[in-house]
């Protein structure tokens, strides 16, 4: 076999594999859109479920997922970014920082249901928050932290070292250098990481299972100490726990969740490309 033929066979194989990767995505999204779209109407998007969730809408679940995501952002973003700044700008390479990094890596490897049990033990029971938006958001925050830390750290690292040297040489303290130069330049990258982390949190079921999610709760949550419905858990419930469930409601719910998550993804992409074009270095 000539080496050119070998090369062509190799490339063809790689191309087929690449196409195979795209295929499931198209099939999943396609199936959900085709079967879910008929369920989408104003009533579905703005009212509570009726008839044992076999009719009506998913408004409480949308609101619940929204507030859980906002709550997660409030806790995880300041902490995550602060830890990233510490690790990237201040920490020296010693045993203490190595321990922190090891902890972060391990945190990202923990299965999400374990976070759920942890949240149940700490926030719901020990701290007596009960099953609530607060407990759910805190649980999701801990799960999201590693993503936010590592992407923020990467964004901080991508800011050229020379900017820091120049700022210090002009009489800047380290702190002035960070908040006047490094952080603004790293912000788009940090924002992208934050959105990707929150997107994952928004779609998770297991961490909120014992900490926030209500099986059926037609009223909207009134405070952060209330339980709430949430899209991923609602999807789980109507897919497994309710007999004679119209299939279009299941897929409609999946579609709403998918759009929610993909919109965040799109937002991250837009921010990234906008700032990449504006960036001067």
């Amino acid at each position, binding site marked *: 076999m000539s080496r050119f033929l070998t090369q062509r066979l190799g490339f063809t194989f790689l191309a087929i594999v690449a196409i195979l990767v795209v295929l499931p995505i198209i099939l999943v999204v396609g199936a959900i859109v085709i079967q879910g779209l008929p369920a989408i109407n104003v009533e579905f998007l703005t009212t509570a479920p009726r008839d044992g969730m076999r009719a009506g809408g998913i408004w409480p679940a949308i609101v619940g997922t929204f507030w859980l995501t906002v709550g997660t952002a409030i806790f995880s973003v300041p902490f995550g970014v602060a830890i990233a700044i510490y690790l990237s700008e201040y920490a020296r390479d010693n045993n203490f920082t190595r321990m922190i990094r090891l902890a972060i890596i391990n945190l990202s490897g923990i299965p999400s249901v374990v976070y759920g049990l942890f949240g149940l033990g700490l926030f719901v029971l020990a701290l007596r928050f009960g099953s609530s938006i607060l407990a759910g958001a805190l649980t999701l925050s801990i799960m999201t932290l590693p993503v936010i830390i590592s992407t923020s750290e990467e964004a901080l690292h991508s800011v050229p070292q020379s*900017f820091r*040297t120049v700022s210090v*040489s002009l*009489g800047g303290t380290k702190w*002035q250098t960070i908040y006047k*130069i490094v952080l603004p330049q790293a912000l788009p990258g940090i924002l992208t990481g934050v959105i990707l982390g929150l997107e994952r949190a928004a779609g998770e079921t297991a961490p909120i299972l014992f900490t926030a999610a209500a099986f059926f709760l037609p009223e909207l949550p009134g405070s952060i100490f209330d339980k709430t419905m949430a899209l991923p858990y609602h999807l789980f419930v109507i897919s497994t726990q309710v007999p004679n469930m119209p299939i279009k409601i299941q897929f409609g719910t999946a579609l709403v969740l998918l759009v929610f998550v993909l919109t965040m993804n799109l937002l991250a992409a837009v921010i990234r490309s906008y700032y990449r074009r504006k960036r*001067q270095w």
Partner: protein
Amino acid sequence: MLMNRTPKIVIENLSLRYSDGTESLNGISLTIYAHEIMALFGPAGGGKSTLLRVLNRLNDLVEVKKMTGRVLLDGQDIYAPDVNVIELRRRMGIVFAQPLPLPLSIRANIEYGPRLAGIRDSSQLSHIVESSLRAAAMWDEVKDRLDESGFAISGGQQQRLCLARVLALEPEVILMDEPMSGLDPLSTAKIEDSMQQLKQQYTIVIVPHSIQQAARIADHAAFFLQGKLIEEGPGKQLFTNPHDKRTEDYVTGRFG
């Protein structure tokens, strides 16, 4: 010329080694006089840039294994424990080899140092912007585009912006680390011209990018080879009639 020379910086028996074992300084003693241009020259790796970074303590940012000796600025040890390093860096501004604008507007680049130091008054700031740009011989070129990005101007203009940015600190000493290495001859000439003006007001320590440049601008020069100070003296003498054989070989182009 030798009448009213005041020592500005006195380096006493300075030795330094980096943690990674690279470029070091070996027993350097050198006096830099106020209102003179001191050129540190010699082949690459001789310790010239390191010495500049010792002077304004930018080498605090990298790992230094061992440093001995003293550096005195106006008679005060700049490595004494009670020295305010931030204040020291304002007194000794540095222009780097590459033009390094901050990712800010031209105006904000120049205001950066003064603002860090707490100057907020806008008329004072715009006065600083104008006078710094004039001193760096670029006011007329950019006066109508002060709010454009510092990256939007040519490389030569960027480097003069960096000089203006240092002047805005109102320093006492200007350190220049091969500031014209990436520039065209015209920009180089402009900066060299302004240096002759600047030395009336400042003390300048420059690592020139060529012997020719050193000979053009230096009042005083010091030849560095592998971390050692081989010879120093008035520029004219050092470039035309060096005492040391190695200096002569380098100046006449026999190595380097």
